């Protein structure tokens, strides 16, 4: 039992000691071309790079692959792309300045819709109840009742 425990301990120590370089390599934030293609636009075709074809799309892929090979992170690659092609190369613009509207407007529209519902729903419900009260409770005046009888008699006759 002791031997087995010692062997397990040894292997754990060995695992911990042996791959420090491997651990350091995997700890470096990296990305793949596939992951970047989802976040980047083809600036000529104006479609996401993931679905774009053509020489410009191929060039952008080559540019990204080159940076990936250098061990650049997603953010570093995006920054490099913006330097070369401007902000339009990003599928989702940065969240500052005017671009903030991209994120705020949908939320504001949703909130506006909710507020509208909260305000309008009670009114609609009240309005639906009103005709029911009218139908059951309203009575004709004596004069109107006589006129109605006269009209009906004219049609009957």
């Amino acid at each position, binding site marked *: 039992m002791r031997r087995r425990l010692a062997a397990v301990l040894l292997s754990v120590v060995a695992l911990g000691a042996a791959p420090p370089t491997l651990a350091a390599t995997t700890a470096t934030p990296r990305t793949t071309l596939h992951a970047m293609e989802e976040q980047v636009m083809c*600036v*000529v075709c104006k479609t996401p790079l993931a679905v774009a074809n053509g020489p*410009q799309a191929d060039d952008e892929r080559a540019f990204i692959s080159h940076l990936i090979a250098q061990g650049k992170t997603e953010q570093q690659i995006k920054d490099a792309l913006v330097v070369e092609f*401007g*902000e339009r190369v990003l599928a989702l613009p940065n969240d500052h300045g005017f671009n903030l509207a991209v994120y705020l407007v949908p939320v504001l529209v949703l909130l506006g819709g909710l507020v509208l519902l909260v305000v309008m729903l009670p009114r609609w419900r009240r309005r639906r109840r009103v005709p029911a009260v009218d139908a059951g409770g309203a009575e004709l005046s004596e004069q109107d009742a006589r006129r109605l009888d006269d009209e009906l008699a004219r049609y009957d006759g």
Partner: protein
Amino acid sequence: MRRIVLPGLVAVLALGLVGLLIFGVLQTTDDTSIDQALAQGKHPQAHDATLPLLGGGTRKLADFRGKVVVVNFFAHWCDPCRAEAPLLSRTQKAIEGRGGTLLGVAWNDTTEEARDFARRYALAYPIVRDVDGAFARAYGVQAMPETFVIDGRGRIAALRRGELDARWIDQHVVPLLAPKAS
């Protein structure tokens, strides 16, 4: 008052959405206003912007005021751009001593790609990069290559959408240049 607020809010939202729709449609429509102006014999003022120069620094059209500037939009991957590059190189040599210059505008190329292109075809004139594409949009650029001739007063004198040939240069650039020194 409450009766006005709600329909007003809905109307404003609806107008906003319609506005966004119109804006979106306009963004995807080709701008042919320069073509139309030239067809009517007008010479619209050329759009100017400060753009990064290959090799460092910046350049704008105003820097060339008084000269005839042949603005050539190109991309390194475009075949007609490659085909016309030797002609552009020769044209620069012919016009630089007569008050003219070419100005290359790299369209959607990286710095390295544009630099390689200039090196390969020995383009010895200033080349700028239109990083965000706004300069090309202002000229209604639709496809590569496109060329605009700007006269000494900063007005567009001619344009060519497509590959250049020597005859077009003779017809639209040469008449604006200073006469050859004999």
